């Protein structure tokens, strides 16, 4: 147990900080889900990041990374959030598919997909859910039929984040005649391939952040299958572990938000409900606890442990803390909370947008109800 940074880690922090100060965008970019221009501005930023070799620091050098450890990744994320650098438009790729590819992919697949993922040249969407397969993901009906060295993909995917403007998707497909968890494969397809139709779905904030995807006899090489045919469920669960447990929501963003909330409180405490100070304190505690939990998880993984069902506790915790934090901000703002334009002394944070975004947290990446089932069954051993 040593909760101090080594001189090397401190030097790394300084290096990240200096680079972001020199290269970070001077103005906030338009949101990547709002318009094509916003999306492409974020892609350009990803390329800038890659020019500094910051695309995905934990990946091996040969695949576009820096070969750094998880503590360095946390430091990078802290500095990134601290600098207010743009959201990662490539997050589905770099945080979810990337680690899974590193674990299950062949050398050729890693060479083909990872460097372009890290550079923003190819931006990825996730294509798992279907109209009839949401929480019950094993109900996937979209099919993959092998034809020589190719697969023919057909079906209907939905709620695919970033799919409107992204380049590639990683989807879950069924070998015809198979049932439930057996017979699923994880296969990549280009979103501009013949037979692919993408229809945008507007979110409650008005952005086209997700989409439905229709696949009609879409031909892709069998090279695009990750792992063996029928191994898809197993691989997806590993991806979900990263998604829920470690990478998707780094603690730094909540620590930044907790700091902004404390500033909001200080600016408004003369007029706001005094009882809200306890919530401001609680928001800091939650963000701090989440950070400590992730540091502990990172230390354990570096000592050789694997992510297990405790990933589900993380997903519940960050999604709920985010709602509590943003709701506290709205309560402090009072009658101006509903305004969509900056109209108070609140500083540069658009709390209402953050709140609306937070409401998605308990739904995506596996609903919190499903996470509680996983905790009860796999951590506590209760019967199914």
């Amino acid at each position: 147990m040593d909760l101090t940074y080594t001189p090397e880690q401190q030097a790394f922090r300084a290096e990240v900080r200096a680079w972001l100060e020199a290269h970070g965008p001077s103005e906030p970019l338009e949101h990547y889900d709002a318009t094509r221009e916003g999306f492409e501005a974020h892609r350009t930023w990803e390329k800038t990041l890659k020019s500094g070799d910051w695309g995905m620091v934990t990946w091996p050098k040969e695949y576009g990374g820096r070969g750094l450890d998880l503590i360095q990744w946390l430091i990078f994320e802290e500095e990134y959030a601290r600098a207010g650098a743009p959201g990662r438009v490539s997050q589905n790729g770099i945080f979810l598919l990337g680690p899974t590819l590193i674990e299950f992919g062949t050398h050729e697949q890693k060479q083909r997909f990872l460097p372009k993922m890290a550079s923003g040249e190819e931006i990825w969407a996730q294509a798992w859910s279907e109209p009839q397969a949401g929480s019950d993901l094993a109900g996937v009906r979209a099919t993959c039929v092998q034809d020589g060295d190719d697969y023919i993909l057909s079906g209907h995917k939905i709620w695919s984040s970033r799919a409107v403007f992204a380049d590639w998707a990683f989807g879950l497909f069924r070998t015809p005649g198979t049932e439930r968890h057996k017979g699923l494969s994880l296969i990549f397809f280009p979103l501009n391939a013949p037979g692919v139709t993408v229809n945008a779905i507007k979110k409650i904030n008005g952005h086209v952040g997700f989409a439905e995807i229709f696949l009609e006899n879409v031909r892709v090489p069998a090279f695009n299958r990750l792992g063996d045919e029928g191994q898809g469920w197993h691989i997806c669960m590993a991806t979900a572990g990263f998604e829920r447990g470690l990478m998707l929501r780094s603690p730094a963003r909540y620590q930044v938000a907790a700091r902004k909330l404390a500033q909001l409180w200080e600016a408004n405490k003369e007029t706001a409900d005094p009882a809200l100070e306890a919530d401001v304190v609680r928001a800091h505690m939650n963000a701090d606890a989440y950070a400590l939990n992730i540091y502990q998880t990172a230390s354990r993984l570096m000592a050789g442990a694997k992510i297990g069902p405790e990933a589900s506790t993380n997903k519940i915790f960050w999604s709920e803390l985010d709602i509590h934090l943003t709701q506290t901000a709205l309560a402090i703002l009072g009658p101006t909370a509903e305004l969509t334009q900056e109209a108070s002394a609140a500083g540069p944070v658009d709390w209402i947008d953050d709140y609306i975004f937070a409401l998605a947290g308990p739904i995506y990446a596996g609903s919190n109800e499903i996470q509680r089932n996983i905790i009860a069954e796999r951590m506590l051993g209760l019967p199914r």
Partner: protein
Amino acid sequence: MDFTLNDEQLMFAETARGLFADSCTPDHWRKMMEAGVARDDARWASIVETGLTLVLLPESAGGIGLSETDFALIAREAGYVALPEPLVESAGVAAPMLAALAPDHALLADTMATIAIAHPLNPFVAHADSAAAILLEKDGEAYLATPDQVTLTAQPSIDPFRRLFSVTWDAANATALGKADWDLALDRAALFNAAMGLGLAQRSVDLAVEYAKERQQFGKPIGSYQAVKHHLATAQVAIEFAKPVVAAAAAEISARDVQARARISHAKLVALEAADTAARASIQVHGAMGYSWEVDVHLFLKRALALSQSWGTPAFHRARIATRIFTQPMGPDQTFARETENA
């Protein structure tokens, strides 16, 4: 940066767990409650023999001189069995304080003795009657007196194993020990209460899991129903996010700065909230059985309640965190920052 425990630390906790599992079972609690006692001399002797009371005592006072991290792991195991004896207050708080004031004091060599502590923050003194001596505070100075040198008035607690007393005393009948570090005593007590809270919480969940696997309704174990599962999952989430806070608070206690104090307060708040959430979920999952004296869950509920309000109320600890928030830099680079670095 390494947030893992070493093998030696895990081994000590394992020893404590084994000892308590054998010597502090529901049968033991029942017998003690019937007899109206809060101390089992045989169990205390085995605790002493294993060296658990020496962990935090410096080597100069005949102890092992380990750290708060080590003792917190033991406190957690004590919480898991709702240990009646004052291991935490005596060996984790009072004895180290006495050792700092008088390392050669004869009491420290008396292995079977427990020491009680009357901290100015607490209205009552726990286990004052069975203690060999009581540490008392006046104007920041510490005094030592035996129970018969003071007047003890019993203040019965809902927790059958917490014997509380008001103490009236006269400095003329006590031994003056000089200026003492009452803040350190508070920090240690709050930290170890938090660690006990983790144990209390996990036991409440484990008892409910055991019951929900067996108890059948509508032809199935009740643990297969989502409403039951979700109660216990929620409690487990609270435990999982209190654990690293307790671990960090223990590792950083010696920094003695605003951040360290805030983290101890954070640990105490969330660990005992987890204990409360878990105990109430456990009672609910047990149904009417959970409300009965016969089922053991109420011991964990009562201990959680008692520890939540002693050694600083939730409001006291929230205020210490607020001080950290409003006087020190916040943000993602501040998780492990120290007051001196930011000065």
